[in-house]
């Protein structure tokens, strides 16, 4: 990890009423993609939401390229170059594919343009006039990724991108994520599918009950079956 950090979380805490959902999470995230894995309810989505300002953290700091953003409203955080691909895609039912992209790209220059999105995801070009919810799960996922990329972010957080996708689409997703990473975009991949997480990321953080319980390389985790069972409750590392 000789990687210069882009996004630094230190002692991040989130409370939902009495529940302490995120407990002193510290992560230093650079250009190399990092996966966060863990079972349901361990605080993975809370982690994503608190970084981008949709959930208020009750303590700790989030530094985005040296700027403290944890107290900013979500729209200001987004302008610091942080984007999210939310769990469940959350495309807008009343907007077409093209409108999603125009909404996401307005007024910002950069490497990602609508034309490049259509080039990268030809499927979206075919469905440009379809509504956001008339798309298949895979198409919606591509749309959600494209929506995030059009802000030309420095760092993208992806919350369970493989959820509900067919294996062949997951393979395509792996290619897309690898390409993004090569392109110089930082990637925090929150994922339940170990195969996807380890295919994209060399570094894996394991979340347990709102804490980072362990940090290891993807190959070490893949080799340690008892670890997988203990923290992830998986019987195999397959899809």
């Amino acid at each position: 990890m000789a990687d210069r950090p882009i996004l630094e979380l230190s002692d991040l805490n989130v409370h939902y009423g009495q529940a302490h959902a995120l407990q002193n999470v510290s992560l230093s995230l650079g250009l190399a993609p990092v996966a966060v894995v863990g079972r349901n309810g361990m605080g993975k989505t809370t982690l994503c939401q608190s970084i981008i300002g949709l959930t208020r953290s009750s303590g700790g700091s989030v530094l985005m390229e040296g700027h403290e953003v944890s107290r900013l409203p979500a729209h200001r955080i987004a302008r610091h170059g942080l984007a999210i691909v939310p769990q469940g895609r959350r495309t807008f039912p009343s907007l077409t594919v093209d409108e999603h992209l125009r909404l996401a790209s307005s007024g910002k220059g950069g490497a990602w343009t609508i034309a490049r999105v259509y080039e990268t995801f030809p499927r979206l070009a075919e469905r440009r006039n379809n509504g956001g919810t008339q798309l298949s799960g895979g198409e919606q996922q591509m749309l959600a990724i494209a929506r995030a990329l059009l802000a030309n972010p420095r760092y993208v957080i992806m919350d369970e991108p493989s959820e509900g996708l067919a294996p062949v689409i997951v393979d395509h997703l792996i290619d897309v994520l690898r390409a993004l990473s090569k392109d110089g975009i930082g990637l925090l991949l929150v994922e339940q599918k170990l195969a996807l997480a380890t295919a994209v990321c060399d570094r894996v953080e394991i979340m347990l009950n709102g804490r980072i319980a362990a940090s290891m390389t993807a190959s070490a985790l893949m080799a340690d079956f008892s670890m997988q069972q203990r923290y992830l409750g998986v019987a195999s590392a397959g899809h």
Partner: protein
Amino acid sequence: MTLARTLLLTGTAGLGILCLVPLALFLALPENQALFWIGNILARALIYGIIALSLTFLATYGGFVSLAQMMVAGIAGYVLAMTVQGAVPVIIGGFGYPMAILMALLASVLAGLAVGAIAVRTNDIYLLMITLALAVGFYRFVESNIDLFNGYEGIRNVLGPDILGRRFRDPMVFYTIASGTALLLYLGVLFLVRTPFGLALQGIRDNPRRISALGYNVVLHRIVAFGIAGFIAGCGGVLATIYNIGISPGSIGLGATINLLIMSVVGGLGHPVGAFVGSLIFAIFDTFAASLYDRDRFNSLIGAVFLVIVLISPDGALGLSRRLGRLLRGKPKPGAPPA
């Protein structure tokens, strides 16, 4: 279809309808009846359609059902009546029509922004209640401040400027101005909702959190949307005040507020054209119900008609025409799984 082409086609079609309908009336009816239709029914439908458009715009694209739009129109009307030369009684007076109308529109935009700012954290039933409270509060304020607004009687004799030597309230002159204004505002709304601002507004209706995660300031967008709706309502308020030769608290009271909601809902909240469809249906029934049915109970007829429309088609007359069209073409419902 590109936006420019859509606007051009819609504009031409709208202009065609707005020109052909009076022509058809002149051909079909004696002159005085045709003028009655144009001056009293069509013009009225257009004016209140404009005010209803401000509500439909907010409801359709932002998901904000605001009951304060009649109030905002009334603020424009009162500013016009208070400032313009010739109004009776003189409250401020002394301004010509262009300046007075400009101030009226400015006031309606500010009022719209204020309503938006006050209601910015509320949605659904709470937004409805807060805007209703504003509307009723303003009505009481106007009614009870006799020095400023001349109380119950209101301000009269707002005749409008002469246009090319003809009276503003001449049925054809008024109709031309009202239809031109309505068409421009309608096209303006269609244009606006395709801009990034309008797309963000629709995104806010779907999911405000996602919009803020994309870097859009949700609060600001909501307030600006209310400001724009304020401008639309203000245009309608100015025209309504000239149409009614003045303004009184009754024209912005609870009854007027609810009538506006009825127009929007009966027309249909799915598309801005619904505002005008609803206001036309309303104007026709409001005018003729008394001669069709018992003079003392014609409101029952109006109520029954609206009830039937909303019962048959929860999305108003627009939904009704869509349903009929689908029935005739034998197409499945939208949202039904493709065969």
